[in-house]
């Protein structure tokens, strides 16, 4: 067991970025499935939620790409992104939100969790004096960008939830 919240090697950083990709995968899969599960007439009636979920899915795909680009710069074995995608897809093929409130609440949890993850990861990288194969400032800059977008996502969902109260 080790103590301390630091990222000490390329391998460890790559693993954490990989976990970020899985979280983004989960966000995208859930957003997509939730959207698909809305009845056709409900979809027409609720363009706001449709736009929210569509934006969430696109943003997660973009975040995954940025995380993959970071991993490519690290000295580690390749990681099987396709397999993870298939697995997450298979999991969420079975899920279904109960109603609009459930969709919004779930989306809020997704955004908050991703924000927390990037925040902790940035803190752990900054607490470390390890050298990585990629420029540390670049990694932090990318992660800060992702974190900011997750925060915007939290605000977006919260605003819609408040409007509906």
């Amino acid at each position, binding site marked *: *067991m*080790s*103590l301390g919240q630091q990222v000490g090697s390329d391998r460890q950083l790559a693993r954490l970025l990989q*976990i970020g990709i*899985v*979280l983004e995968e989960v966000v995208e899969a859930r957003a997509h499935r939730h959207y698909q599960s809305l009845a056709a007439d409900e979809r027409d009636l609720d363009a706001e939620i449709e736009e929210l979920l569509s934006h969430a899915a696109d943003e997660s795909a973009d975040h995954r790409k940025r995380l993959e680009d970071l991993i490519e710069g690290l000295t580690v074995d390749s990681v099987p992104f396709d397999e993870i995608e298939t697995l997450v897809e298979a999991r969420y093929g079975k899920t279904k939100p109960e109603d609009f409130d459930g969709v919004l609440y779930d989306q809020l949890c997704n955004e908050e969790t991703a924000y927390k993850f990037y925040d*902790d990861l940035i803190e752990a990288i900054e607490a470390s004096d390890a050298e990585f194969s990629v420029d540390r400032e670049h990694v932090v800059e990318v992660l800060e960008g992702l974190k900011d977008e997750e925060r915007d996502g939290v605000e977006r969902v919260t605003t819609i939830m408040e409007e509906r109260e």
Partner: protein
Amino acid sequence: MNTANQYLKAIYLIQQQDNEPAATGRVADMLDVSPASANEMIGKLEDRGLAEHEKYKGVSLTDDGIVRARDALQTYCIIERFLANVLGVEEFRAEARELEPVIDGTVAERLDTIIDRKPECPDCFDPELDACRCLDVAFESEPESEQPAD
């Protein structure tokens, strides 16, 4: 940030194994820290109402401490199972120990949605194996910890 949770988890596991208060030296050994560091953190846990320390006997968790320790243990189990079963990491225990301080409970909850975890978790955690007993993996690959005798 999660250091307190790691202490709570260690105290909880030692108490489970020994069925008595956890000696500070045992806690320090398990976490690979100095006894002075362990004493300092145990003092903080006492201040927060999570543990009680009795001189010459050791440290015990309060009810609140046990709840936090079990949550921390569950988070650790999720990380191990996720690494072993989803990412296929052979040295999942060593990696879980590295990642544990960075992975928050809320993040672990999301990872939990794509793994198959047993309802009895975290009671199925085996401190000797440093892993869940139900985890369907080969344990021979762990290079850093001692293997239990059969």
